[in-house]
């Protein structure tokens, strides 16, 4: 009986340890990439013509969503967003890599302080369930967690997130049919 308890405790310890973020600084590639600190109107207009959104541009959008228009570097933006728990320190960051829908959903979920369902409440935010939550609310269109986000799509997501942060709801003409208004 004692050995069974020991095994269960060891398994539990291993499971909990694996859920924790790895110690040390996050892995950031091309961290010196500059974020120009443009105003949000110019940022959205420029982004709407881009086929994909890089991680650097996506983080710049989240900073604008939070009302922090500033000239900075990608590494500084990552650190700032880690401190505010908008991004997960366990991710690896690469400035010129395409932003995935899962990461975008995670950041929007955290930035808008959305209360999720059972899995999000029990296990905490994750890319997969944040995306499902935002799709359920009509804030994001169908698609898989690892798919890249297009420029026009990210503009739409930021617009909805901004309205949600300011007013607590999103107007019906901006969300997908069947989404929660």
């Amino acid at each position, binding site marked *: 009986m004692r050995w069974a308890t020991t095994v269960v405790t060891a398994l539990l310890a291993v499971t909990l340890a694996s859920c924790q973020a790895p110690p040390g600084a996050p892995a950031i590639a091309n961290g010196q990439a500059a974020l120009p600190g443009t*105003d949000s109107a110019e940022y*959205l207009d420029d982004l709407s013509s881009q086929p994909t959104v890089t991680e650097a541009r996506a983080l710049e959008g989240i900073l*604008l969503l939070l009302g922090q228009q500033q000239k900075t570097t990608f590494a500084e933006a990552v650190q700032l967003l880690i401190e505010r728990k908008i991004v997960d320190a366990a991710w690896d960051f690469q400035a010129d890599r395409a932003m995935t829908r899962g990461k975008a959903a995670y950041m929007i979920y955290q930035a808008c302080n959305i209360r999720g369902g059972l899995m999000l409440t029990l296990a905490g935010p994750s890319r997969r369930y944040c995306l499902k939550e935002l799709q359920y609310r009509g804030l994001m269109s169908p698609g898989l967690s690892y798919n890249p986000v297009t420029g026009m799509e990210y503009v*739409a997501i930021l*617009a909805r997130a901004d*309205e949600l942060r300011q007013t607590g709801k999103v107007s019906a003409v901006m969300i997908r049919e069947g989404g929660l208004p």
Partner: protein
Amino acid sequence: MLAVACGRVWAQPAPPAKPGPEEAAKPQPQEQLLTVTIKEVTGTAQRLVPGEKPSWVPLKAGDKLGEQTVIRTGLRSRVVLAFADSSELTIARATKMGIAEFRKEGPVTKTRLGLKYGSLRASVEKARGPNDFTVSTPVATLAVTGSGGQIGHCGDIGSNVQCSFGGFSFASGSRSLNLTGGQSTNSRLLMPILLTQLQSVPQLGDVFNGLTPSETTSLLNFGGGLGGVGFLPGAPVAIRPPLLPIGGLICPNGKDGQYDGLPLPPPE
């Protein structure tokens, strides 16, 4: 050979017909350009100043705008435009739109707006005479006559429209749908009652992928044919790519498939 030659002749565009004496005698409707006044500005809002090197300048209350004006707003922003015919237009956050035409043709006030992304809330006044007010998005056109409501266009879901009062005519492709107060639809021209039903069905994916509106209605009314386990309206199906082509339908200059916020210019 003769048929081919005739075909080529017939295919050529006909020369513009000279107006006959009767048509020349008819009074042509006078065109008068009207102006739009900025009533209120909140946050970041800019308009494009055309020229050799186009530049964006901030908007401020009291500015007068004419035709061929492009406006963009940022996050936490809002602009209210007052039209000379007492109509009012509110440009919401994260929007890029353009005023292609705003003029009086005889008794009719003609307004042509374009919406690249974002949303607009329009309140069109018909007490001062008939008007022809349309808003074009990359996938649909909304005609508003003496009514109010909201239209939005997003790159991922297409266009949505909600009529608050009066009447809207919403056209997408060759089809159109008339809306009255309280009704809404999208660029797939889903019936308003269907949209209301969809609000009551939680969706984690696009469960109605590839179905016609009548098939979707049937699933909503009668379930997916799964008997006791058929609590969902239909079996989950493959997830498809984004619904609508972006910039593919309206391309004023034919450059890179871009859409610059204005409706197509009239053919020369």
